[in-house]
């Protein structure tokens, strides 16, 4: 479909672009103090975008802009996820005190730009598009990570992030170039066809290339061994940004991986027969399984070590990436389904946990475990809500986190006995994770003494807390709507061959 026709299916992105422009413009007229008001415009724009997505969201699938972008429920799902998490992050950014003294106008407009990049990631089916999208998201996140100009840690985070990001996207690009050479095109479907008739030696080249590409993707979802930037960046960046990075880019990163694997190495995304995923001589299931095991184990083990809750959450998010990777080796609809569900659940519990950290810090506390000592006695509500998030992150029913894990395990076990070991490793890992998640609960409740003065957070804070906590519980008990939504969205654009 040519560009002009495509535009009619491109409303969300268009609205988004307009939003960005408007945001930048209005920011010019705000004084430094009120610059934060830009957030409202951005929010408005995002909501409009979401409406647009909702309106146009239909069962039909097609490609846009001469097969550069896919327009399918799968993409819309991740777009919605992106907007949801962005909106939530913008909301919690209101409560942090880290941005004080900074002009926050472009902070929000940058987020909007990032959303655009993630939209592209969610729907790209062309190597060029993928590269562009990833770069857009990366560059913006570099800036956001280094947003606190005066703060050494933030600076350092930005530096590491930019170099690491550029480095890995460079590797990815090199891989892409080789793939282009082998396939003669940058379009997924062409590549997939080309893969069928590769000559012997080309296989190695292709393998090398695809692993280079994987490096690029792995960096986005911070999978071991491309995770090293994560802890430092997560710790250095302003907490809301950390929360954001741990959710949104990760989500679309998985979108890219799922789409890439199922389209290029799979059966073109039809989810009919996972088995052909092994048509190359690359044992993808094994590689991914090993990657996921290393990722979750390392994430958990190192998280055990941390004394800063923020940093602990950073590592734990690596572990969660590992859990989600578990479902990837199956290359089945079940797997993708599980990952998507998990991501949705993950947004609430993870952002919630980060928000509690932000709130406690803004109340004069800090980010270390010691700062949380006796919190459950001082602010019972916050403590209880935090406990809910910790439970959910550990994956204990009846919380959303458990449901996510449940589907992940289910998809792994469905494959059959050959992958049971993976499930067991995952299970043991979630037990290990209990140890550090409940260290938080322990310091909050088991330590410290009942205090007379009980701090009840302001209404707005309570509202935010519950917007995170209630879904975390609710979707742990009844998640049929989500499940249905996911299963409807589990529909990639398929080239009819």
């Amino acid at each position, binding site marked *: 479909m040519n560009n002009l026709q495509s535009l009619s299916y491109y409303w969300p992105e268009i609205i988004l672009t307009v939003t960005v422009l408007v945001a930048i413009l209005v920011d010019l007229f705000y004084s430094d103090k009120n610059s934060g008001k830009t957030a409202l415009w951005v929010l408005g724009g995002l909501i409009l975008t979401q409406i647009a997505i909702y309106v146009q969201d239909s069962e039909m699938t097609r490609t846009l802009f001469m097969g550069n972008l896919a327009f399918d429920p799968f993409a819309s799902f991740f777009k919605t996820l992106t907007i949801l998490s962005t909106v939530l992050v913008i909301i919690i950014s209101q409560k942090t005190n880290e941005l004080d003294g900074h002009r926050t106008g472009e902070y929000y407009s940058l987020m909007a730009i990032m959303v655009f990049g993630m939209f592209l990631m969610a729907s790209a089916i062309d190597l060029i598009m993928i590269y562009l999208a990833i770069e857009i998201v990366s560059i913006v996140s570099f800036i956001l990570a280094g947003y606190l100009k005066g703060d050494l840690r933030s600076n350092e985070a930005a530096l*590491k992030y930019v170099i690491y990001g*550029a480095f890995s996207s460079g590797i990815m690009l090199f891989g892409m170039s080789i793939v282009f050479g082998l396939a003669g095109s940058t379009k997924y479907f062409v590549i997939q066809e080309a893969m069928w008739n590769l000559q012997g030696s080309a296989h190695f080249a292709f393998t090398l290339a695809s692993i280079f590409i994987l490096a690029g993707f792995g960096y986005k979802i911070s999978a071991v061994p491309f995770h090293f930037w994560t802890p430092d960046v997560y710790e250095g960046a302003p907490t809301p940004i950390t929360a954001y990075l741990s959710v949104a880019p990760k989500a679309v990163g998985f979108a890219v991986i799922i789409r890439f694997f199922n389209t290029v190495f799979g059966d073109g995304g039809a989810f009919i027969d996972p088995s052909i995923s092994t048509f190359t001589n690359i044992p993808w299931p094994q590689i991914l399984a090993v990657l996921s095991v290393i990722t979750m184990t390392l994430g958990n083990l190192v998280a055990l070590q941390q004394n800063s809750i923020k940093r602990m959450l950073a590592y734990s998010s690596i572990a969660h990436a590992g859990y989600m990777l578990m479902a990837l080796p199956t290359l089945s609809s079940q797997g993708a389904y599980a990952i998507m569900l998990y991501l949705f659940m993950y947004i609430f519990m993870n952002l919630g946990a980060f928000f509690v950290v932000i709130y406690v810090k803004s109340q004069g506390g800090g980010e270390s475990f010691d700062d949380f000592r006796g919190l459950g006695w001082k602010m019972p509500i916050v403590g209880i809500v935090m406990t809910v998030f910790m439970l959910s992150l550990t994956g204990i029913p009846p919380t959303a986190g458990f449901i996510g894990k449940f589907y992940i395990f289910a998809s792994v076990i469905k494959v059959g006995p050959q992958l049971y070991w993976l499930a067991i490793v995952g299970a043991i890992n979630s037990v290990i994770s209990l140890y550090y998640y409940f260290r938080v609960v322990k310091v909050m409740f088991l330590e410290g003494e009942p205090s007379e003065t009980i701090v009840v957070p302001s209404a707005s804070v309570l509202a935010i807390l519950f917007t995170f906590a209630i879904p975390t519980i609710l979707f742990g008990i009844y998640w049929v709507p989500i499940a249905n939504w996911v299963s409807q969205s589990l529909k990639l654009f398929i080239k009819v061959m």
Partner: protein
Amino acid sequence: MDNLNTYLSIAAILFSLGMFGVITRRNAIAVLMGIELILNSANLNFLAFAKFGGMNMSGHIFALFVIIMAAAEAAVALAIIINIYNNYKTINVDDVRELRQ
């Protein structure tokens, strides 16, 4: 002499050089340059394939995009490095180790 393999090998060499620079250089700027080398090696690949592979223009286009992106990236990176310099009074990446655990 003027065939695909030559270009590919040159690209490969460039890639490795870039890699080497990134790993070994202590100066942030130098590291950035190493990254640029990597990107350009990729570009070289694209163009070489496009030329000899008798393929469509998408190779060239890709290269163009890469150049643009590299520029953008460099801009951001340099900005950050300047900021670092203001705070640390150095751009030696080894000295930027606030976040070591």
